[in-house]
């Protein structure tokens, strides 16, 4: 591996650096790229125990 080879591989090296960076980020936030469970996200104005809560909860 010499400097000229590294120069000509620069785009691949940039890909490797970006991939590694994204991999570290994913590991730090627990982001599973494939096979993560699909969730539907909602914003509720009535959180558990909050004012206006009309849900009935049984705690286990």
């Amino acid at each position, binding site marked *: *591996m*010499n400097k*000229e*080879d*590294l120069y*000509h*591989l620069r*785009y*691949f*090296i940039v*890909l*490797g650096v970006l*991939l*590694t960076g994204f*991999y*570290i980020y*994913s*590991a*730090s*936030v*627990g*982001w*599973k*790229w*494939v*096979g*993560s*469970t*699909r*969730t*539907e*996200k*909602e*914003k*509720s*104005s*009535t*959180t*558990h*125990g*909050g004012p206006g809560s009309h*849900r*009935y*909860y*049984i*705690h*286990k």
Partner: protein
Amino acid sequence: MISQIGNDMIPVLTSTCPKCGHLNEPRGKAMTLAMTCTKCGTYFHRGQWNDEEVLFKENIKPALPLGARGTFNNRTYIILGFTVKRDRRYSYRWREYTLFNPVDGVAYLSEYDGHWNFIKPVEGNPKGNTRGYEFNAEGRSFRLYQKYKTEIVFASGEFFYDIFKASDLTTTEEYISPPILLGCEYENKSMLWYRGEYIESSAVAAAFQISKDVMPEQSGTGYTQPFFKARFSDTSLVQVTALFALLLVGIQLLSSNWAERKVVYNQTISMKDIATDSKMISSGSFTLSGGTKSVLVSVASPIDNDWFYADFTLVNENTGEEYNFSQEIGYYYGYEGGESWSEGANHGEAFLSRIPAGTYHINIYPEFSRSNYFSVSIVHDVSPGMNLLFALLILCAFPIGYFIWKHYRERSRWSDSDYSPYDA
């Protein structure tokens, strides 16, 4: 013939054509030892009038005119000679231009099927004592591509040696590691190595400031033609890929090691625990700390040829954000056609990515078939190990694709060689 100048006996090589008597003016001055007459085209040795003068049967016009000046590597060369050579065994032809620079000396441009190589003699023996078809030099692996003896078909211009004698006596071996070639011309007592490098036709035209339209049409794959404009060795590509792969594996090991895998909820729930009106059950509050992380929800039920289904809502009590998801498990087995079969499992997992820190609870809306209880566990901060597989696939996509593509292109390149590594 030796001419005399003044009173001193200074040998001067004459440039008068022995055939037509035309006085030629060689650009290479005293270095020119053989040339063709600019008037009648006869090839002759300066100072040696004998039977070796040659009048060619063909008159071939060079694509690059004699006397043209071109710049390569910041050196300006003048074209002194042009030869058309033929392989004595296979009869294919190529063209060579002899270039000269007063400081750098002689160089050559060879052209075959519109593919060009810029060639310069080198000192020493790059192959050393290595035997066989392969050797390493310049950090690259070179392999013998062709071995031949040449025949001069046509020549014009000036030459620093007798090209006919050289072609008669010498055998040439050319080793390639595209875009580089290392060639060796040898006879019994001498050996001359040269180094060539592929050069684009457009670059040759630009060097001589001539139109690309007059350049020979390109066809096929040049034997030193790089497949990419980017030039790197296979070893370097493998090394860089391996470096990143090791880095990713190392990061995965560290992240798996550092992942907390904290069980924040673990409960077995029976049907009678479910509120009859809402048909749901809610966990108590639990805290997910340490920033945004993953959450793994595992469900298990003692199902037997049965299924279990539940909707879940993970509620962030701080922000009101709700994450709705479902989980279905089924386990079936039987005996059919003399064989036992089974499918599914009595447990399943839901992996939730990027769940922010906060205080949460989870609402569960189960649907039972025949079983009457199930268990749920919630684990915070689980390392998504499968990412490593996909990262490695992304990383290796280019090298794998490159090597597959290169394999087929290399087969094509070596198909004209007697020394192809692809031949059994």
